[in-house]
């Protein structure tokens, strides 16, 4: 069997159910693959791991991947199982925020670590400075959870549709008490959770074949997971070594993640272009300074996998 190591972007949760399900259901084995899944975490940059040879494939968000590419790490998108972005800016209604026009003077929580670009490019579109002041917004580097909103340290925070949003709800805030800004709807979304490999990996003999089988099996896993959220959640719980995840939360996450998935796993070139232009325009300090070029993604793998 071909050995492959997959580095996730975050901890074991339903966000990555497809891979765990493919593993658990034997889809990888059937494809003659021996896949090792490495959970990520707040202190793990998948790009760095792949650069150090710690993984063959990584799950990464496109801004980070393209930034790495520009810095000399030739990452290539081989598949894009998530066709929609799940990121939102979530505000407490009682803070008085109703639309972007209310932002000046507010404090907003944003995820950094390579995840700040959609927000920054949105702000530059809106022409709102992010350095504080009366006509600008004060940006906080948000930690991992939704406390800043609950503790009223921020008027708005970043959430994912499938995770943090529900934590806010679980904490006792009703959906009516929230105002949501979905980046997808705003047209500034960037692609999340794609599969990336190094150019050199693609050139290795036999690797294209192995990756093709891997993507095909993974997409089969995603399909299965989306169809069977309960079972997928159970598989996640089994694989979570921290013992901290709960069934309810994972089932719900799986259901929400299902809404973001693409059928084929093939990258939509239009979405790619949106992402790139959004990144190139990203405020005063653009993430990437030039077009990443054609090598930044390939349909070879997904095309082969579809057959």
């Amino acid at each position, binding site marked *: 069997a071909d050995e492959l190591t997959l580095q996730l972007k975050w901890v074991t949760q339903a966000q990555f159910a497809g891979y765990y399900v493919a593993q658990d259901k034997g889809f990888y084995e059937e494809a003659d693959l021996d896949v090792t899944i490495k959970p990520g975490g707040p202190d793990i940059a998948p790009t760095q791991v792949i650069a150090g040879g710690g993984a063959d494939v990584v799950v990464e968000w496109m801004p980070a991947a393209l930034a790495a590419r520009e810095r000399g790490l030739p990452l290539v998108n081989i598949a894009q199982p998530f066709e929609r972005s799940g990121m939102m800016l979530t505000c407490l209604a009682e803070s008085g925020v109703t639309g972007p026009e209310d932002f000046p003077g507010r404090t907003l929580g944003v995820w*950094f*670590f390579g995840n700040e670009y959609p927000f920054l490019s949105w702000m530059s579109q809106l022409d709102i400075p992010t350095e504080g002041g009366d006509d600008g917004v004060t940006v*906080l*580097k*948000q930690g*991992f*959870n939704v*406390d*800043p909103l609950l503790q009223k*340290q921020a008027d708005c925070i970043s959430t994912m549709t499938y995770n943090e949003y529900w934590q806010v709800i679980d904490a006792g805030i009703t959906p009516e008490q929230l105002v949501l800004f979905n980046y997808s709807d705003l047209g500034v979304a960037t692609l999340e959770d794609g599969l990336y490999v190094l150019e050199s990996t693609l050139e290795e003999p036999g690797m294209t074949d192995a990756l093709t089988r891997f993507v095909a099996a993974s997409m089969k896993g995603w399909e299965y997971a989306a169809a069977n959220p309960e079972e997928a959640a159970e598989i996640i719980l089994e694989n979570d070594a921290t013992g901290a995840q709960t069934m309810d939360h994972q089932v719900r996450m799986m259901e929400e993640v299902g809404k973001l998935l693409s059928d084929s796993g093939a990258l939509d070139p239009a979405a790619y272009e949106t992402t790139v232009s959004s990144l190139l325009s990203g405020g005063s300090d653009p993430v990437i300074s030039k077009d990443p070029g054609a090598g930044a993604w390939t349909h070879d793998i997904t095309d082969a996998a579809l057959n």
Partner: protein
Amino acid sequence: MSWVAGAFGFWGLAWWINLRIAASRQANTPAARLAVPVIFGVTLLVLWEGLVRGLNVPGVILPPPSAIAARIAVSGPILWADFMQTFVKGALSGYVIGCSAAFLTALAVDRFDFLRRGLLPVGSFIAALPIIGTAPILVMWFGFDWHSKAAVVVVMVFFPMLINTVEGLRSADSMSRDLMRTYAATPGQSLRKLRLPAAMPFVFNGLKIATTLSLIGAIVAEFFGSPTVGMGFRISTSVGQLALDMVWAEITVAAVAGSLFYGSIALIERAVTFWHPSQRAAN
């Protein structure tokens, strides 16, 4: 390969020079005291540069010192702002508060045996509150700005300082203590005149260890929430962008600031504990 060989060659040469300086008559002059660590450091840098280039280590894993230097050269204002936020506001205030709190606690613990037996074991609990657990809580309590970073630093430096001070206050020898008894010195007097001076070598151990802890604490705490300025903020954000040259530029600032901080405490130590054998003879 020639890079690697050159680097190791340089290493050998520098080591030889350092041995010569350290053994020479001028070993105690300020110039030598400065030259030796500088030569050693330059050696490390040359070795680093040589290995990174020679072994073709990708810049996104470890950038060569030259790239880091270039980054520092163009990022002065950012580095300065980060330094002020993290070191001056976060680390320094936390250091002062934490060390004073531990010092006062140690005095109380030393004065009341009840506290020594009760508080000291509990104090050692605080030692192990890992920053990963305390930082999110303290950010929640004290907000995103430097106050929560100072609080993290307080928690981190408390125990080393406490345990050293307590140990130091007990270190006076029995004859010196007997002397105080014959004067019927009050506990306060015997503290001021005997136990505090005798404790100073230990106290400075605590203070020195706390310098580096405070810096680590303030930086790492920013990983758990911060404004968009600060050394920890910059490091974590830059890692996400694989801007490793910026990461190392911040680390360089941290190392220089930390060493100067430590050095200044060590200088004060020399002045205060001049009488201690470890300071008297340069053995």
